[in-house]
């Protein structure tokens, strides 16, 4: 929560403060300390102690995480609700719930996981209690390894991309298709090129693009059109010419034709 170590004189307090993972942890601590029934929390007393604690943190100039303040507000709200006399009307309302119920549920749930965390920490840990051979066996070195789809997690992919970004100057990155606007424009241009044609060679859509941005944006435009099912992409044979066809030609869909018309008009 806080690693402020400026207050050597108050070290003992600090140790306490750092012990708490959050407001739920602190509340559980207070409930345990006061030896009260978690199902019947004396909310006034616990709230006072909770707020005292926040004051202490403030006095120590420690950052109080927002969650602690939110919980303080919740406690005060519960306290005031409990002070209100229950009206007959409310009593009729489907089995009125104790204002503390939600909090109790959360505390119990939290306690469950807090204990699970302790149990987990007592497992025999790899790299602490047991060690495995985390290297490839030298006897396999002589074999030619035929790789299979490797195991990799999504997060590793993102990390790898971030690594690349870290090496490249930020400027060079703003070029690629970052603005949707030019893609929209290019979609209209591509549709214009297709207008009245049965099919157009994929490559021909790139004629005139001289910059990398331009090419990439054209490409994104084509993909977008494909996603919108406004064009079809076909290829007669492997690595042969790729043909782009407007979908309207093959029938199926006046809506598409409409839209195509609209975009076309908008462009020209």
């Amino acid at each position, binding site marked *: 929560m806080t690693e402020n170590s400026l207050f050597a004189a108050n070290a003992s307090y600090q140790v306490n403060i750092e012990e708490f993972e959050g407001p*739920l942890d602190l509340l559980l601590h207070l409930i345990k300390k006061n030896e009260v029934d978690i199902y019947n929390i004396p909310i006034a007393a616990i709230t006072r102690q909770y707020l005292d604690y926040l004051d202490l943190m403030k006095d120590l100039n420690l950052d109080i995480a927002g969650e602690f303040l939110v919980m303080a507000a919740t406690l005060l709200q519960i306290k005031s609700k409990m002070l209100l006399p229950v009206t007959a009307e409310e009593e009729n309302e489907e089995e009125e719930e104790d204002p503390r119920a939600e909090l109790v549920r959360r505390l119990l749930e939290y306690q469950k996981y807090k204990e699970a965390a302790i149990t987990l920490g007592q497992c025999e840990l790899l790299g602490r209690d047991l060690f495995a051979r985390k290297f490839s066996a030298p006897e*396999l070195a002589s074999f030619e390894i035929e790789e299979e789809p490797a195991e990799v*997690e999504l997060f590793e992919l993102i990390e790898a991309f971030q690594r690349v970004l870290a090496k490249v100057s930020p400027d060079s990155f703003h070029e690629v298709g970052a603005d949707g606007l030019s893609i929209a424009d290019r979609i209209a241009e591509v549709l214009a090129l297709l207008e009245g044609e049965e099919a157009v060679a994929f490559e021909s859509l790139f004629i005139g693009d001289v910059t990398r941005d331009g090419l990439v944006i054209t490409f994104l435009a084509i993909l977008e059109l494909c996603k919108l099912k406004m064009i079809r992409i076909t290829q007669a044979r492997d690595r042969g010419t790729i043909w782009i066809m407007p979908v309207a030609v093959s029938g199926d869909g006046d809506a598409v034709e409409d839209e195509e018309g609209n975009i076309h008009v908008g462009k020209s």
Partner: protein
Amino acid sequence: MSVNLKSIVESLIFVSDQPVSLDKLCGVLEEHERPEIRTALEQLVDEYRESARGIVLVEVAGGYQLRSRPENADYLRRLTRSKTTKFSQSALETLAIIAYRQPITRAEIEYLRGVDSGGVVKTLLEKKLLKILGKKDIPGKPLIYGTSREFLEMFNLKDLSSLPSLKEIQELAPTDAFSAQQDLPLDEPGESDQ
């Protein structure tokens, strides 16, 4: 023949840098029947269990792996020089919540813990103990998380079902109301019905 098979199974497990499952063994040892392989494996497990050797054969993360004997850990730490694996309470809490409740979103984790958990989730992702399972099909499409194979390997767990069972405090509960814990009453992003 049977002795031979046991030796082969041991070799295979030995050279693998990951736990080896029975399925995997059966795939590699195609000329042998599954029951035969299972028997060899079980004999091997028994032998390791009965010996006081420096290597133990553990069932972990859905497979079998050779690991150093836990009692010798002090000496091994000297050799490896590397920092000993250690987890903070917040890391363990977050892992526990994710392990028991996966697939789970960050908002759900934070509801249960009562504190922001982005930093600790990121650290656990970096350590490969968590994985991103995809996006939840609710407004805002939040990422959903689960524990990884590495998590099982790290905590020496056979599978998720061998996680220690959660201590229920229900016998103390006046009603069963508290036991319902399926959905967390979280506001979905975008839904402002409060």
